[in-house]
């Protein structure tokens, strides 16, 4: 990391402010819930959609914008599995490790994913493409083992098919 001081300041300032698009989406959510607290969780999801994860600065910005206690929002952010409080790669791999996938060999599959990408759970590949996260039952148990990459479900995944799956996401234009 060689960000110059100026860049760092600029990025921090940007992170501290919600983007116009984020604010528009948050305001839309406000119309769907009668209470601001409910909007808080939605706002975290919105910020994450735009920035990939929820940094301290983003969390503070949301809390400030909605007038919610920071600690309360942090308590919510850290409670839910799909709010990322650390940076993730361009593609998040959700590896189903629940019982049906376990019976069908998800542990061996995980070993192959780790070997192929050089990452363990919670880690991001060196090229910044993939983050590997375990997830409870993805609800496709008759086609186990299953994993998600980004918003896509992959079923009946074999060690052999991993390379082809990852190639589809690698260097994909956002």
């Amino acid at each position: 990391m060689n960000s110059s001081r100026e860049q760092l300041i600029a990025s921090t300032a940007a992170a501290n402010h919600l983007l116009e698009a984020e604010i528009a989406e948050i305001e839309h959510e406000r119309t769907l819930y009668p209470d601001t607290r409910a909007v808080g969780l939605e706002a975290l999801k919105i910020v994450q959609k735009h920035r990939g994860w929820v940094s301290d600065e983003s969390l503070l910005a949301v809390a400030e914008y909605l007038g919610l206690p920071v600690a309360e929002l942090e308590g919510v952010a850290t409670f839910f599995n799909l709010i990322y409080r650390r940076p993730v790669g361009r593609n998040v791999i959700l590896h189903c490790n629940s019982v049906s996938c376990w019976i069908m060999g998800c542990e061996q599959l995980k070993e192959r994913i780790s070997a192929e990408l050089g990452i363990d759970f919670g880690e991001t590949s060196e090229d910044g493409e993939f983050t590997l996260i375990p997830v409870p039952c993805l609800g496709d148990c008759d086609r186990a083992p299953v994993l998600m990459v980004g918003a896509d479900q992959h079923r009946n995944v074999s060690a052999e098919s991993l390379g082809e799956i990852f190639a589809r996401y690698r260097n994909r234009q956002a």
Partner: protein
Amino acid sequence: MFNNPLTRNIDFSRPPLGLADYEASGGYGGLHAISKGLEPADVLEQVKESGLKGRGGAGFPTGLKWSFVPMGEGAPQQKYLVVNADEMEPGTFKDRLLLEGDPHLLIDGMIIAAYAIQASKAYIFLRGEYTDAERALRKALAEAREQGYLGRDILGTGHDLDIILHTSAGRYICGEETALLNALEGKRANPRAKPPFPQVSGLWGKPTIVNNVETICNLPGILAWGIDWYRSLTRGSDHGTKLFGVSGKVRTPGCWELPLGTPIRELLEAHAGGMREGLELKGFLPGGGSTDFLLPEHLDLKLDYDNIAAAGSRLATGTMIVLDDQTCPVGMVGNLMTFFSHESCGYCTPCRDGLPWVDEIFRDLERGKGRREDLEILEQHVDYMGPGKTFCALAPGATAPLGSALRHFREDFERHVDEQRCPYRN
């Protein structure tokens, strides 16, 4: 007449039916009956009569649940209907089928349920990972709004209904209805103390009904084709059909809509094709990860709520996880304990501290570090985390596979200790 009201429109070789095609197939009949004067009390009566039981796991009679909602002049103005589409029970893959395959069926059923309890606002609490279901639902909701089936004064009935799709940020505990309500309110999803029950004081303190996706999807059929038809569907003592699934090492795993009361053997052999070549059935969890193991000797039981309960387990979600004779039962239960331990909300002590302890013992057993006294500690936890000793049903759910595995597969546990390794690994 149909014998598959839940899945008759589902065909994954094409996109789900749009509103016009869905309606042409007999859909939204309940809504039209309502517009012709069917009263909320009539709907409630029909649902009670049908004998429909909740398909989310607990099997509570749906009509009875609804009947606790305050009605009439003195009732609170704002009431809510919430659909629990947070399918996350390990080994359960039935609601996904309905959500992705026939989204209008759910909306149809929600209109009926919301009318019955006079709720003008409804939320679908959808699992965040169900992105295909989200897409299908958004499209169907837009069509229903466009058609005037949602919104203000629907078809001149004077009844308003908005349906809002909420995607969850992900925690198993959100399947517990009061935890779900907290999550919808933007709070940590800890369960709430009951009473008050949500029917009286639920979402934002207002009367709220939380029903499972499959439960709601039963309603359009009941209203359209009547109680006699609905009650004729069964092959057992509970009424209607149910989605049944089989996963694990069977020849053709899958999910099928079958009459309640279908024998387990038929599900396993005729539909799932029996065990894979060279494998024997050792046991199975009949309704997802938080049910007690049943054994090959139970294969002739009929799949309905009372029969499975009498055998010491639960029908629950109706999705069966099969354990074969070459898969380690200790490893399988250990996997479930890791899941439950991770998904404990941390609110009450037996669950928060008990589950990680149990999970750690399973890791020791797997690593060849198990001790005889560990098995006693596991037994104790079946009691400490059992029904009535925790704040909600999560930990008791975990004790179901744990306690039954200790009973049925004792020898496997002992071999892990005596041989200081997993005997299923070479």
